[in-house]
């Protein structure tokens, strides 16, 4: 039997154990153990994906017990993709984290790595398991570790943000658990495939309806679908950078995965669309989420907060796409899980680099970044364009499928919301680009780049002569001087940037080999 699925999840778990122990010997050791564990997990994930693509769905029975009694890891194409995504992002982030953890929380670095690995175990488990109750436990492992990790962040507000996150997270998880309870009452099983078979016969039952609504509601709270999003912006922006970079792209996306898994595998799309007639309402909800997220992002003056609201907006994309009720929309939603994870990761990596050099990312701290950190900003621009949806970055292609799906379903309001949010994102990002591109603070017309003579026609236009123009330089010492982040952080950003383009140009391949076969 191929043990790769188990290795995939167990490697970080054992890694966490050893990293904790190794910290007693030497603090630095725990980092290398964590790195090794994630590398092993990443390798296993890739090999699992390869096997699944070649040989179809893979079932792994923990300790050999057969379902529905035993615990089963069931890995089909969707899981495999999400697993590769999680392990790769977690690994890359670990590479980038060594410096930022050193800077932010030097005294608690080992516990950071231990918690980090446990968090990743939770995410991987959520994506790999084929059992509804295990899903709950793993979600809670993920949440618990993320509470503690967020609390390691901002000294003033991190704790409060984490506590609010706990309250809402517990409600979400409890709703899900209740839903599972109802499912158990009606079906007597907890294995997803088993439940799905039994549910086919009893679709009219009100207990099933209750179960479904509770499960979905719980997952929505966990994924921060508007208006259940209030915990997210603070939690993500006050977390330590090393953790924000991984929780922002992965946590919500994994929850979207759970939603899609529940919809497609457990309850069945037929049940949801034909029996419930909720789809229209949910698409409207998604439209509201998209617009609200986009416009709330518009009013932020801190880059991290702005990105957090963009996540709220993007969640609307995926929920709406999944509920459109056709293959194109679902394809778009699944593709967007992958793409959005990559884009958000790249954005947060870039933000991490900026924080590493400048401590803060309020807009007033950003001027002159293009000349100071050209490589970081290149990655940031690319990811930003991807969020806007400019080809050939990957964001365009998921939007493509989503809008196509919206047309096919006749949901023109959803298509309009997608387009409007793209425009708002364009405004948002170009606002940031502009601030970073121009070296001076906004509204300071006297300024120009240090060391370059001012062009003559500009002087004509501005109405003052050359002699007066030279004094503007020097307000920003870093202008024109390179002050880039460490290589490890740049390398991670570079790889993700390549991935953004690659996921874009190979979108057709991804859809044809992974998503469409999964949906069939």
């Amino acid at each position, binding site marked *: 039997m191929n043990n790769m699925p188990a290795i995939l999840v167990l490697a970080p778990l054992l890694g966490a154990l050893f990293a904790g122990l190794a910290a007693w010997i030497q603090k630095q050791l725990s980092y290398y153990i964590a790195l090794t564990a994630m590398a092993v997990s990443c390798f296993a994930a890739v090999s699992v994906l390869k096997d699944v693509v070649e040989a179809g769905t893979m079932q792994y029975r923990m300790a050999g017990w057969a379902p529905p009694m035993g615990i089963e890891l069931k890995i089909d194409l969707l899981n495999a993709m999400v697993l590769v995504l999680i392990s790769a992002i977690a690994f890359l982030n670990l590479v980038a984290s060594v410096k930022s953890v050193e800077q932010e929380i030097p005294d608690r670095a080992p516990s950071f790595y231990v918690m980090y690995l446990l968090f990743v175990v939770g995410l991987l488990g959520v994506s790999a398991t084929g059992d509804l*109750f295990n899903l*709950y*436990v793993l979600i*809670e492992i993920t*949440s*618990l570790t993320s*509470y*503690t990790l967020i*609390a390691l962040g901002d*000294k*003033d*507000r991190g*704790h*409060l943000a*984490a*506590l609010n996150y*706990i*309250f809402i997270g*517990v*409600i979400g998880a*409890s709703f899900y*658990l*209740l839903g599972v*309870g109802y499912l*158990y*009452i009606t079906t007597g099983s*907890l294995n997803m495939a088993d439940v799905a078979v039994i549910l086919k016969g009893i679709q009219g039952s009100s207990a099933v309806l209750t179960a479904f609504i509770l499960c979905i509601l719980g997952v929505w709270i966990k994924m921060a679908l508007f208006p259940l999003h209030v915990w997210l912006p603070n939690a993500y922006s006050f977390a330590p950078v090393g953790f924000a970079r991984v929780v922002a792209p992965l946590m919500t996306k994994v929850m979207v995965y759970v939603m899609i898994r529940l919809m497609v595998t457990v309850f069945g799309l037929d049940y949801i669309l034909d029996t419930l007639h909720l789809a229209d309402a949910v698409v409207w909800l998604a439209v509201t989420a998209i617009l609200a997220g986009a416009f709330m992002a518009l009013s932020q003056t801190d880059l991290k907060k702005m990105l957090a609201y963009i996540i709220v907006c993007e969640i609307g994309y995926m929920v709406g796409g999944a509920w459109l009720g056709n293959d194109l929309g679902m394809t778009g939603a699944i593709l967007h899980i992958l793409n959005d994870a990559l884009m958000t990761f790249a954005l947060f990596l870039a933000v991490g680099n900026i924080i590493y050099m400048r401590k803060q990312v309020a807009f007033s701290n950003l001027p002159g970044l293009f000349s100071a950190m050209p490589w970081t900003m290149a990655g940031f621009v690319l990811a930003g364009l991807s969020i806007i949806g400019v080809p050939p970055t990957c964001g365009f292609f998921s939007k493509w499928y989503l809008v196509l799906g919206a047309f096919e379903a006749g949901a023109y309001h959803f298509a309009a919301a997608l387009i409007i949010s793209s425009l708002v994102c364009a405004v948002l990002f170009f606002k940031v680009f502009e601030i970073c591109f121009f070296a001076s603070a906004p509204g300071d017309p006297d300024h120009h780049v240090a060391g370059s003579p001012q062009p003559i026609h500009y002087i004509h236009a501005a109405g003052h002569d050359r002699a007066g123009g030279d004094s503007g330089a020097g307000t920003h010492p870093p202008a024109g001087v390179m002050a880039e982040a460490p290589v490890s952080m740049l390398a991670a950003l570079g790889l993700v940037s390549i991935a953004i383009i690659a996921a874009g140009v190979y979108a057709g391949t991804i859809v044809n080999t992974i998503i469409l076969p999964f949906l069939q």
Partner: protein
Amino acid sequence: MSDILSLIVAKYNFWLYIILMMIGLYAMIAKNNLMKKLVGMNIFQTAIILFYVSIGYKHGATLPIIQGGHGGHSAHDAVIRAADYINPLPHVLMLTAIVVSVATFGVAMALCVRIYQRYQTLEEDELRMRVSEKNNL
């Protein structure tokens, strides 16, 4: 009328778990003190555990332990009827859930202590005020 009453009586612990849940939810939303909110959270979680235990409960059933089941002959002789035993699976699940809830509770408590150390209060309105004061400085 008596139908409804009998429905309520027959499934009384399902109704009561809902009442407990609401109490918990109310405390989490409406209470001002963080500790009180935490108590509410715990009540909320135990309500769900109660729900699960109720799933397994059957009138007139007994604990799921088979007499002489280990190696004896009686197990083979007597027919085992599922209706005679309480379903043990939800119980087992709840062991995990309890551990999860206590872990959450512990983390939340630790956070409360930290918050108190920094802001000298656990009241939410006062906290909000002090946080915004800090931001403005």
